[in-house]
């Protein structure tokens, strides 16, 4: 006892450290995780940087012609060197082609997807719903080369017949005219294949938005004596409208960047072609794949610039889509 009293004369132990500062291990952890998290930023930046670095010379030589011109000629002069003056790289034909094919896909695919999502959310019995949702999700995982081959061998024969029908009965509309009776491998068929490829993504986004429709509003509509269609028109569709627009934009982004499927079912000709039933067209991605094989180093640079344009386009479309979808998701809670 006396000993402890003597010892109490020794100075009081230091105050324990009370701090909200993270410990060393946590600081390392946060550093590592933040670095990992920032990698998406780094990768997107690197993609932009490298494509710009490689495509810059083409972009400078061609200027605005790269976006507005529609001829693609890599001229090699007699001495075997690359002829800068006579080479023309104009992406307009393929940009228009990209938009045409993607818009056909949207026009065909979106009504089907939204209808399917409506059925799955508001009509389907549980057992059917489970199977159908699994099937459509599985379809999202199908490789694009499979869609390409299926489109080429299975869809194309039917598609040609439909194209002829459309031409016969709606041929007076400029889009459906044919300069020559060739309807194989047309933008129309490529659009149909892309429509099938975007069905899973548009369906699942729409389904998600539909399922967030506030239950009280649905029940209020039913309580007022609405039929199911009246409820959908008054409650679900207005609620989900902007979210579905977002889903459609996501589908558009996917349709614009598709390479292999389009390459398989489309006869890629470098020209502006508004006649969607005619066997000529293309999109930027498939054109890059087509030209890449035999491209000279200078043409590769032009293709890099084309890839840069495609990258920026899809990035813009996807960003708008994601902004819309995220916002809709929040307003529902």
């Amino acid at each position, binding site marked *: 006892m006396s000993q402890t009293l003597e010892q109490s004369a020794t100075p009081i132990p230091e105050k324990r450290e009370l701090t909200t500062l993270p410990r060393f291990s946590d600081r390392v952890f946060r550093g590592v995780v933040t670095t990992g998290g920032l990698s998406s930023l780094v990768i997107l930046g690197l993609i932009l940087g490298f494509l710009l670095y490689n495509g810059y010379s083409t972009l400078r030589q061609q200027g605005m012609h790269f976006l507005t011109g529609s001829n693609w000629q890599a001229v090699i002069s007699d001495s075997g060197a690359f002829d800068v003056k006579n080479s023309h790289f104009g992406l307009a034909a393929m940009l228009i082609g990209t938009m045409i094919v993607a818009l056909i896909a949207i026009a065909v695919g979106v009504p089907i997807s939204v209808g*399917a999502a409506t059925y799955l959310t508001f009509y389907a019995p549980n057992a059917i719903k489970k199977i159908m949702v699994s099937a459509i999700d599985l379809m999202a995982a*199908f490789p694009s080369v*499979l869609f390409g081959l299926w489109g080429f061998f299975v869809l194309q024969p039917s598609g040609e017949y439909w194209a002829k029908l459309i031409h016969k009965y709606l041929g007076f509309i400029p889009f459906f005219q044919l300069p020559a009776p060739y309807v194989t491998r047309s933008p129309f068929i490529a659009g149909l294949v892309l429509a099938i490829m975007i069905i899973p993504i548009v369906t699942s986004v729409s389904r998600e938005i539909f399922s967030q429709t506030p239950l009280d509003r649905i029940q209020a509509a039913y309580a007022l004596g609405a039929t199911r269609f009246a409820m959908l028109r008054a409650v679900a569709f207005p609620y989900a409208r902007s979210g579905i627009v977002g889903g459609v934009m996501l589908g558009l982004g*996917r349709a614009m960047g598709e390479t292999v499927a389009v390459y398989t079912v489309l006869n890629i000709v470098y020209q502006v072609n508004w006649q969607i039933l005619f066997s000529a067209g293309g999109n930027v991605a498939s054109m890059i794949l087509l030209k890449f094989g035999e491209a000279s180093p200078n043409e590769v640079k032009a293709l890099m610039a084309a890839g840069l344009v495609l990258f920026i386009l899809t990035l813009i479309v996807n960003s708008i889509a994601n902004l819309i979808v995220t916002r809709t998701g929040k307003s529902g809670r």
Partner: protein
Amino acid sequence: MSTVTAQIMPKPSKPWAASPLDRAKTGGIFLAAVLASFAVVASTPLKGKLAYILVFFAAYIMIDFASTFIKVGRQGAVDAVFRAVVTMAIAIAVTPIISILITVWLRGHKGLHIGLFTTDMRSTAYTDPINQGGLLHAIIGTFLLVFFAMIISVPIGILTAIYLTEIRGKFTRPISFLVQAMSGVPSIVAGLFIYAAILLPLTKKLNGIEGSLALAILMIPTVARMSEEVLKLIPSDLREAGVALGGTQWRSVAMVVVPAARSGLITAVILGIARVAGETAPLLLLTGGSGSKNYNMFKDSMGSLPNYIWQCFATGTPESITRAWAGILVLLVIVVVLFAAARTLGNRKVGKK
């Protein structure tokens, strides 16, 4: 006594459910529409599958509309028509899936033989009879490419997800935005990027690892987004309990949160693999396609299933196209197995060991 109460208990009535009479009516309308479509197609110049489907659909809507209109009036009839329209939409949406699965089996099974999994294409041309040569090199190639892509992308993807759910620093919003934007990067652009960043300045040759890098770029957003969804589902109680026991954030994430989300994280990785296993465009630019087995990721071109399918399709003879379908069948089986695995794991309750 108990039997009496059992008799008194009324059967639960479901006034909203379809009665046998309603079902019979629906069946009757369906049959009538089928008959009408056959009759119209037989008696008019219309022909083909499309005509049957269109006439059937039009007839179904008309009969359905008329019968409902008589019974309950306009509102109900419009409702019935809309129901028919959305049912049609789901039927159209599911048709391609069924068609694709049937086509792949019908055309692909002719090219199946045991040699497919034991030999490669070293001494076989695509145009040779189908029972020669095989897919071994392509299966090995795809396995290696996807495995290396996984090694690169899984840590990055899961770290991103942990950042988004656990750290929630000032970059949370921009990163979650960028990850979503990244999932829209076209595969050909990923290929071009690796070509510009690695093949042109450094290696100047086709090899496997470049393909893996491109696949990793496409895989990261899938893994990150799916993992984020899973980690969000982990209840905060677990995190708080970890911290309350005196654990650092690092330990509560590594010892509590991640183990609790394990099966969900595995699902995310599997879905990422399924996404890139059939990716073709970047491989055409970066890995080339050789006919012989190549185990070295850093040297020489490397065959893969998508590349094999592509080459066979481009060759264009009946034999090579049968080869392409056999390749697709193998690829599709891999994708479906991965998908089913992901589903089975994903359906387990999160947090259960």
